[in-house]
């Protein structure tokens, strides 16, 4: 397999993982709440901010 395709698959794998993580973060949260959308209900922590 060409090296550039391996690179593409690797980067693509990371993109999929980042996408899933980003989408899962909002699962189960109120969709129409400004407090949720803008400031995560003011509840973020040291690592996740």
């Amino acid at each position: 397999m060409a090296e550039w395709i391996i690179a593409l698959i690797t980067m693509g794998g990371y993109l999929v993982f980042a996408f899933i993580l980003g989408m899962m973060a909002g699962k189960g949260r109120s969709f129409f709440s400004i407090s949720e959308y803008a400031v995560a209900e003011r509840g973020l922590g040291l690592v996740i901010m």
Partner: protein
Amino acid sequence: MGGTIFSAFAFLGGPGWAYSRGAASFYILAYTALGLLPWYLIGPRMAKLGAARGYFSMGDMLRDRYQSRTLVVIVGIVSVLAFIQYLTLQIKGMAYIFNIMTLDHIPFWVGALLSYGIVVIYVATSGVRGAAWSDILQGALMFVVAWGVGLYLVYTLHGGPGDMFAKIAADRPGFLEIGHGGSKMSEMAYSTAILVSVVGFIMWPHLFMKSYTAEEKTIKLTVLTYPLFAIFLVPVLFIGFAAVGVIPPADLKSSDGILPYLITNNLGAQGILYGIIGAGALAAAQSSADAITHGASVSLGRDVVYPLKPDLSERTQVLIMRWAVVVIGAVSYYLAIWGATGLVQLLLGAYGSIVQFAPCVYGAIWWRGARKEGAIAGLVVGVGVNFWYQLVQKGVTPLDINPGIMGLIANVIIFVAISLMCQSRDEEHVRAFHRT
């Protein structure tokens, strides 16, 4: 927080500056160490005020303190325009990384669309939580890749950092110094570049808004621990220095391409390695792009639209913000792919506008005499002066002072002078704000 702050600049602009400007690139380390310090004072105060008075954006605080819709709309518009500039930088970075790491097989527009497109979707869907959670993965990846690549290149090309810097100092006198012959930056330009970055750092609305996402203790802890993550920048600069005297400038289209060039020419043709490094560099760009995109959407919705239409329901406001992610993203993507400016110059240009918020923000928090007339006038003059020196004078300023600082000087003078000339229209409201 580290993931949000370190961007495409970290993997492209940073090495590019080290390679082309030598010691001038140390300004990055300086402002990184100092940039979040003001947040130790402002952040907890904003967290407390935000929870008590229902703030979601910088504009909410300014509207409450100054009782001025005009000021907030101006801040919102300047913010969105500066965000677009900053986003363009990140998207260009993503496009470049994708293209280089796939050995020119993936066109710029495709790479940018893939990597930024997912950011738009998860930010529009998950809001600030989407940005925050993905930043953890991205921050960790950036850190590991930067140190891995940085150390590998330094030891492979030079035998270690000591040998590398000794060789550079011998071959290029002045390159590792500021303000001397052979240096790429004067002392004044260097110092004021740091100053504008430090003053303007936490004035970026997407960073300012972090004040409302956490408690006071968490904010203080973040400020104290953040410089540890900033250690990530050391190998980034090493990468650029490692190429000095090894890679001729004529081999590069621009100095921002030095890292991709080193990877594709000095690491051996290994697709998995390109992929991992590419992922790390993409992570750097995306971790900033998601926070910036989110911040821009809140600025547009809360600081531009809402003051003009205060009767909008909460549901409508949120829909506007979520759709704003798509619109702002599309505009930034277009400008990134079909526009052209050097990466670091773009960022410094955006900082020059954002730093103009500092007088009215600090004044709102700590000066009971601050008045909306002074804030508006100072902001307009500051932004005007900054753009005059950047666009008309092409960066040429008296004493080589950074254009943003020139604007800030004019801004502060006007802000203070006009505030002192104006009476407060609601002294009790100002007292109540400061009592909170």
